[in-house]
């Protein structure tokens, strides 16, 4: 059995009387793109910093490729490419000098041709990387941060809010890099606030709320929780049935229009509608956002696709 790329076991972190993380357990399998979600202060960055041994846990254990993040931190970090949420570059250093320095630190072997390709993909010209970083815009700093994280092509990428400050075109370029990394078997652990982004690139998500993991699930399963929105418009007045098909939630019903939310297969609803004088049918694919906002709002979970709050969950 392949060992998990990341394993958190009952991870906890307290800062004095403040609990930043409480009993967080999860596993990320190799080759997966894992989205780590939560509002500000939920504990995402603390978790990431524990993985990198920048912060020490007060409880539990974190390991990467079966290596303990604290006791075998050097071996762990030799396998990680990290993009911080706020990269702290020196303004007086050029982008190239920064990449050279970070690339020359232990455990990294940087292929300069690969770096050049990355710079090209992110539209950082040679003249750009030759300038002091104090002259960089937020987006340029973010792009350089991405290059330094990807340049050694590590087996695990840990990315904290990776597209913050990137324009839409560069976001697409980044998503392409991510897809290629996944195709090469790399594992990605990324925190994000941008739910459409998570929906687009992640295989699974974990959601932190108040330092606790309240959801751990494949993206598709979470999306299904929201149910598809179905709007049926009729050419004549219809009477609602006495009993609705299983998984059918009624949002609003009028003689000529039904607004439904369908969890699960559409077949039974379609069968019902075919007996009606239907004029138009609109089916909207659910968005992750619809479910996650309920979690963010501290509402009880609609249905947890995978029980997670304690113990492990694997897909």
């Amino acid at each position, binding site marked *: 059995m392949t060992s998990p790329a990341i394993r958190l076991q009952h991870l906890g972190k307290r800062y004095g009387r403040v609990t930043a993380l409480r009993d967080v357990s999860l596993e990320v399998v190799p080759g997966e793109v894992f989205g780590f979600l939560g509002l500000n202060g939920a504990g995402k960055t603390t978790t990431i*910093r524990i993985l990198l041994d920048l*912060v020490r846990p007060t409880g539990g254990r974190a390991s990467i490729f079966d290596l303990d993040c604290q006791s075998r931190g050097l071996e762990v970090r030799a396998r990680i490419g990290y993009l911080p949420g706020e990269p702290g570059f020196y303004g007086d250093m050029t982008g190239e000098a920064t990449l050279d*320095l970070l690339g020359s630190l*232990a455990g990294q072997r940087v292929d300069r041709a690969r770096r050049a390709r990355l710079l090209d993909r992110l539209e950082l010209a040679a003249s750009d990387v030759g300038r002091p970083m104090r002259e960089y815009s937020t987006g340029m700093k973010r792009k350089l941060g991405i290059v330094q994280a990807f340049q050694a092509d590590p087996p695990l990428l840990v990315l904290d809010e990776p597209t913050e400050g990137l324009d839409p075109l560069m976001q697409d370029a980044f998503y392409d890099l991510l897809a290629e990394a996944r195709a090469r078997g790399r594992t990605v652990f990324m925190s994000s606030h941008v739910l459409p982004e998570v929906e687009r690139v992640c295989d699974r998500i974990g959601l932190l709320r108040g330092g606790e993991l309240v959801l751990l699930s494949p993206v598709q399963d979470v999306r299904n929780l929201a149910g598809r929105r179905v709007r049926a418009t009729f050419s004549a007045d219809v009477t609602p049935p006495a009993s609705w098909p299983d998984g059918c939630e009624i949002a609003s019903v009028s003689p000529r229009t039904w607004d439904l939310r369908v969890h699960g297969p559409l077949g039974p609803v379609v069968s019902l509608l075919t007996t009606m004088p239907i004029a138009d049918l609109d089916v909207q694919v659910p968005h992750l956002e619809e479910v996650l906002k309920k979690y963010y709002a501290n509402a009880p979970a609609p249905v947890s696709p995978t029980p997670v709050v304690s113990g492990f969950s694997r897909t």
Partner: protein
Amino acid sequence: MRSSAVVLAVHSVRRMRGVLIAIAVVVGGFQFLLTQVAAFLLRRGGFGLISSFIPDFMQNLAGPSALAFASFEGVVAFGYFHPMMIATHIGLAISIATEPAAEVETRFADLTLARAVARHEVVTRTVLVLVWTELVLLLVMMLSTWTGLACCTPADTPRPGAATIRSLAILLGAITFCWGGLALAVGARVRRRATATGGIAVAALAAFLLDYLARVWDPAKAIARFSPFRYFEPMSLLAGGQLQWRDVAVMLAIGLAGTIGGYMIFSRRDL
């Protein structure tokens, strides 16, 4: 492959090379000019007059600086114990020693320590830069002193011996390392460089003034032994005494304790 500590040390020195060169030029130039001042005073026959004009209590109150002008050797060696020169050396050492705090503050440490770089290598880098820069500055000062004496003073002048200059440099290096080590301990603990530099600078000033007071005021003598400057005694060297290795050892031990503390604190803290 070079160790990360060396890579980071080269990076640090490269970033601060402009300041280092400027300081080296200033301290070296000052040392050279002092030899010219000494030669000028010698030609004017001023040394005997100067020493006779300064009463004992004034010599104590003014400290080593006043006595320095009483002899050719004193003027030549003035740069090794002038308060501004001491402040320059210690200030630079504090600035270097608090680099770990600066890197935590700017989050550059997140980028370096997210790689296979051990935390102790960051501290080792700081120690390497600290020692290297101080050695370079002392070497520049000694070379300037030697150049000034060799090229521009009469050959029959009673010059300070090489051993005296070397001992003065050792004393200055020891007091600098002492404060650098203390700054490293504080810099390894705090999140802001200004907190570390400000705190240590105030402590150094207080220690300097305490030692200064203790030289003329007996009640202060009891606690002045806690001031590292109490062990910085250049005037005894100029008076023909030997370097007190015990004093040097005390200053180095304080610096070493700070350095070890810095290693331990930085290795254990949350960044």
